[in-house]
């Protein structure tokens, strides 16, 4: 057991899996030299440049070649340098990776992992700040994971690499070095599709994922002390398929549901969670199912003042909790 940052945890997961299974290999821009966030540091030295391969600057082909390599017996872990740059690969992800197994009636499969840093709050401007999980959570055949903590990152990345389906593994870049956490040295996995109740409570269910988990926990602590509101915080971790049972059970207990996500509010993944709760837990609701998210503004403006204005933070979340609690 050691205290690790999230980027260290990611690196450990990669090297563990590459040692464990010689079919696993990493490819992407700059990964050979360690990657712009240093997530692949040391891999080329240990495994050689064939297994930690620098590709040309061509996102569609990074993903497309990964698909091809997975068809021919390897387990590629592609890195897309920033989630904002993944869009050229959308066709390969949606038309090919997601559909190959279904369209071939189960004959072919596509065990690729696509890792990419996402998320705002680092003065990244409109092209180093985007949240992309909604696009891919919408597509049957893909799994989508959003991590923002070291323990979750290592366990889930291992699961993603071992999963025979295509997995989008989104790492919140602000969380890469934000804090340290105890992470086991030995092999462990976290199952995909299982949420984590990171704080128990009985007055309100707060469902969230990514960096908003940390902010939600802060807000929950604040309202407990100040206002005596008891908030249960659930971190989905896997956005698709998401842990409906865990969330619904909590809402049945508390009667109030608040969904917090960093992405633009309209059509963001939290809207799906909200709709499901409203439909399937209607008779247990004591208040309107409410979302807190960024407004519909391209994420995110470069100026710190503007960025702060837009993004959810612990104070905004606490205010939202209080308002729903008062209903």
């Amino acid at each position, binding site marked *: 057991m050691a205290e690790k940052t999230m980027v260290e945890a990611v690196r450990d997961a990669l090297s563990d899996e590459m040692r464990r299974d010689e079919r696993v290999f990493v490819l992407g821009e700059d990964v050979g030299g360690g990657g712009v966030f240093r997530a692949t540091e040391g891999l080329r030295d240990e495994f050689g440049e064939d297994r930690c391969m620098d590709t040309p600057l061509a996102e569609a082909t990074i993903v497309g070649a990964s698909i091809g390599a997975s068809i021919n017996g390897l387990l590629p872990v592609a890195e897309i340098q920033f989630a904002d740059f993944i869009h050229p690969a959308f066709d390969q992800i949606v038309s090919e990776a997601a559909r190959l197994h279904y369209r071939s009636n189960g004959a072919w499969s596509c065990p690729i992992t696509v890792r990419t840093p996402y998320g705002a709050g680092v003065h990244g401007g409109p092209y180093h700040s985007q949240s992309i999980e909604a696009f891919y959570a919408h597509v049957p055949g893909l799994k989508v994971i959003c991590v923002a903590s070291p323990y979750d990152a290592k366990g889930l990345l291992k699961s993603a690499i071992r999963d025979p389906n295509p997995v989008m593994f989104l790492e919140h870049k602000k969380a890469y070095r934000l804090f340290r956490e105890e992470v086991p040295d030995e092999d462990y996995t976290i199952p995909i599709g299982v949420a984590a109740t990171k704080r128990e409570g009985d007055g309100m269910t707060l469902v969230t994922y990514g960096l908003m988990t940390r902010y939600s926990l802060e807000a929950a602590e604040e309202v407990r002390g100040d206002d005596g509101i008891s908030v249960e915080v659930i971190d989905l971790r896997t956005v698709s398929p998401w842990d409906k049972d865990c969330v619904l059970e909590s809402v049945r207990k508390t009667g109030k549901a608040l969904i917090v996500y960093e992405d633009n509010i309209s059509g963001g993944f939290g809207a799906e969670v909200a709709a499901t709760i409203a439909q399937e837990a209607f008779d*247990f609701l004591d208040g309107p199912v409410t979302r807190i998210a960024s407004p519909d503004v391209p994420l995110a403006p470069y100026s710190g003042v503007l960025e702060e204005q837009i993004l959810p933070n612990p104070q905004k979340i606490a205010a939202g909790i209080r308002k729903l609690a008062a209903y």
Partner: protein
Amino acid sequence: MTYTLTLPEVGETVTEGTIEKWLKAPGDKVAKYEPIVEVNTDKVNVELPSPVSGTVVAILVAEGETVAIGAGLCTIDQVAGETPAEIAPAAPSEEPKPAKAPAAAAPQERADRGGPGRATPRVRRVAGELGVDLARITGSGPGGRIIEDDVRAFAEGAPAASEAGEDEEAVPVSGIRRTIARRMSESAFTAPHAWLVVEADVSGLVELRAAEREAFRERTGVDLTYLPFAAHAVSQALPDHPYLNASWAEERIILKKRVNLGVAVATDRGLLVPVIKDADRLSVAALAQAMSELGGKARDNKLQLDDVQGGTFTLDNTGAFGSVVSMPIVNLGQAAIISFEAITRRPAVAEDGAIVARDVVNLCLSFDHRILDGHQAGAFLADVKSRLEAFAPGSDLD
């Protein structure tokens, strides 16, 4: 064996085709899969192959004619023993029909929430589970909302009320009982009731009825009681006293133009009030027959919804029980209710001071004091009284 070639669907969205050119004529031989006709469609020009081998018998559609998919084009005398590639038009490749929208969830039962106090879905569910009537609870939540604690407290606070103890019997509450309870409660607790009573001398009415009863029964089969006369007097008076034929609508008083008289009927299931529509247009005889019919239906449980809806004023025959004074409860949504008490023969003082025996009846009016005041109620009653007192032998029943 004769085979009919029909126009198949030759492309998505194609609905018809025009015969461009027949490649075979009657009498020609044709082989399976050999082109037999050229067809024009708005998407493609196609040569259609014959699905069977044989000899062409007859052309059914001439060159230049347009027909719909599935129409017969020609007949072929088919070669024996061959399996035809049967050209039944394939099911049109349409857009997959959108899955029917799932049946809308049954609208949440707007259970007896008559009184003030909203409740969220969660609270309604808990109330349902605990058998608590939300209408009985005052909410302590924001804006008077009923919260879960209210429901649970209520359920705990009144356990004995729903259970029968020793020397007691618990009778389940029927639908009618429950409705009466609800409506009477609401009327009693929301409309401020006031009461007036007048006495009417109906000696003439008593004689009239005695004289006409037999003939009436023979003529109509209906027993002539005093109630149709009361109904007649009330219905004739109401148009002159519009505030007695009205309802309270918070910001407005709605004056009803029609006189739909509800007549209370006691049945073994509970009090029912069938309504005689446009009672002011009916004669005593007509009213008697209408009452008989409705009363019968009520007792036989054959009333339709239309029979009990739309009432604007109610008449109650409490006299049938021997009552001489009542304080009836205004029928929810109306302005007033009148009861016709028992007719009693009493000593009265005549003009010249002599003591005489007269038939006297009390008319008791309860009214909603939000809508009208005593003087209007009094004027109405005076009108009804004078009409009743005007009945005498020789009065026209029709």
